[in-house]
């Protein structure tokens, strides 16, 4: 008699098993469930969230745009704490150069340079991304104050700024349009382009990525350049919409961006996650914030709630569950030994 040993599960055939497999591989489940629950509850308690759709989408774009760039770095298991100060500094660059045709490219170039410097310290010098980007955070924050002479700087062309905040068509403002363009670009890059797909390999197992010939350092440069560029783009958008650059701009952006990425199922140690997940996370946060604001819930209560959701999102990560489960098993008395005694 021949015995067959099967390693791993049998290949699923049929539509529903395949669908189940596909869903099982996705990391956005928690974000989707959270978003659905929020939308379902709001349909009854705060329908204004839906009737004021342009505002709600605008809020999602505000939270999400930096989070999308940040996700490119998180997928590789790195952190970029300098996103908010890149936003502030690039915003000031837009304001201090009178001609927007020069100011906007200069600000975006600055974001790219910031990404290159971050990546240099991380990939070439070997400094942990937390430390390197923390240093960049302070440096750029200081630069924003120096460039602005510590006061808010108005853009020269106020009318252009005010026009920038108006809808292009329907409810779509330039902010919303740029947000979706950034989403599509990064989504295509990390799913359809080889270099982008390699982000997952770099984040999943860096040594294996090296061994299989993936240019890990080049990928780290690419990820940080994306993050820097998108943060600078957000800075341009913020400054044009406000018609003023403030050196303290984006002070609430950093935590919101990380929250959106984490709620969307991105694993902070890299290798697992998705841009769609970040979009879902940003949507959950954005809709929740709009609803809580409309309901007059005090900010400390809002923060407590968002913090609790974030904590649960981290705890319910499968790897965290495995760690918790292992700890629990280790602390419980070994049943076999107890029985033997």
């Amino acid at each position, binding site marked *: 008699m021949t015995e067959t040993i099967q390693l791993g599960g049998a290949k699923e055939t049929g539509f529903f098993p395949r669908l189940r497999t596909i869903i099982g591989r996705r990391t956005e489940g928690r974000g989707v469930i959270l978003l659905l629950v929020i939308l379902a509850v709001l349909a009854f308690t705060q329908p204004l969230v839906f009737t*004021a759709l342009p505002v709600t989408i605008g809020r999602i774009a505000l939270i999400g745009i930096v989070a999308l760039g940040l996700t490119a770095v998180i997928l590789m298991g790195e952190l970029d704490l300098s996103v908010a100060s890149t936003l502030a500094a690039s915003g000031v660059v837009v304001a201090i150069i009178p001609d927007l045709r020069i100011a906007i490219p200069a600000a975006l170039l600055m974001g790219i340079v910031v990404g290159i410097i971050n990546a240099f310290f991380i990939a070439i010098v070997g400094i942990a991304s937390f430390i390197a980007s923390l240093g960049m955070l302070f440096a750029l924050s200081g630069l924003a104050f120096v460039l602005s002479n510590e006061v808010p700087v108005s853009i020269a062309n106020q009318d252009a700024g005010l026009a920038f905040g108006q809808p292009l068509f329907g409810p779509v403002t330039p902010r919303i349009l740029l947000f979706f363009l950034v989403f599509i670009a990064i989504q295509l890059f990390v799913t359809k382009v080889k270099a982008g797909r390699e982000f997952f390999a770099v984040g999943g197992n860096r040594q294996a990525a090296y061994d299989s010939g993936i240019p890990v350092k080049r990928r780290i440069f690419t990820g940080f350049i994306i993050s820097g560029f998108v943060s600078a783009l957000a800075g341009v958008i913020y400054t044009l919409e406000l018609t003023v650059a403030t050196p303290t701009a984006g002070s*609430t952006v950093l935590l919101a961006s990380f929250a959106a990425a984490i709620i969307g199922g991105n694993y902070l140690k890299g290798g697992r996650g998705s841009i769609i997940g970040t979009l879902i996370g940003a949507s959950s946060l954005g809709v929740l914030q709009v609803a*809580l604001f409309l309901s007059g*819930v005090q900010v400390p209560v809002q923060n407590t709630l968002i913090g609790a*959701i974030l904590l*649960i999102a981290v705890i319910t990560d499968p790897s965290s569950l495995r760690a918790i489960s292992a700890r629990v098993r280790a602390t419980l008395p070994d049943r076999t030994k107890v029985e033997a005694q």
Partner: protein
Amino acid sequence: MPSLTPPSGGTQRERKRGKMRKSRLILAPAAMLAASALILSGCAAEETTETTESAETESSSDDTTTEEAPAETFEVYALFPQGNDQAYGSTLIEPLQANGAELGINFTLSNSGYDATKQLAECEIAVAAQPDGIMLWPAVGSAVRPCLVAADNAGIPVWVINTDVGPADAPLTYGYSGPDTYGQGVASAELMCEAVDGEEVGIIQVNGAAGNGTAIDRDNGFTDHVEANCPNVTILAEQNADWTPAGAKQVAADMISAEGIENIGGIYAADDSMVDGAVQALEDLGEDASDYFITGIGNTKLGNPLVKEGKMYGTVFQSSVWEGENAPEYMHRVLTGEIAKGDRVTAYMPSVKVTAENADDPEVAPEW
């Protein structure tokens, strides 16, 4: 021969599914938490309205001859950069809501944490909700134009408090009530000049948070007045702190080290909390703060005792209660048409100087 029995707990696939199930089960509390918060938030909003109504009913039944329930009720979004997270904000909000309830104004409060972009987003949401009015305490005074334009286009009147908007934006608002932040700097400078009384003195200056409108105004007011009226006072060095005693202590210690304690005869700090930090920096060096000319702004619960102890010559009273009580009054006048668009009203709170002579007066009892 390898064992064909799967390890306890099932196959790898089964274990994985088990973990996924576990993950989803644990997610349930998150979803429930969000759902409960949203439902509770709805209840909270309703409760606020009910409380206001019941208070009005109680008031009218108890004292029907003197007070009547408001004939009309108004929904107003109050877009603030701080709230119950800071002493000034919390002591302002209480009279604001109480007086608002009496006038039939129900406030929905926000707190942007001094992030101008976040405040703009909140303004967009507020405009979409189409309230009767918007009360704006700008996070950054010069960054409110898009919010004002959006409100103006929607026909929603805006009343500004605490930090006034610039002259170009003023026509988009109905008025301003709150402190004269430039005037406060001037008043503190007047106290300094009075204290110094013609003596040649070098001082160090501790400003508020960099980029903050109030900090900039107070700095300009103090500097302009000293330069114009008491040339005997020389500002040796100035630095920004973050409005906290700890931050001020650090920058004051740095400036004292850089300039030399023997060259410093006085300190101006843009807020009493920061005066407290600067005094600590002096005392850490073994100095007696009462030997120095020190002035501040606020007459806060930290600052008033310093005046009484002689460690600070004087300060300028900023009343959060005045601001909280008066803002709904002006908003109500706007909502009832008493203040029309184009009649822009400016109401500054009195910048009362507080020295050892009047520090115990009940009129200047510290509020925050």
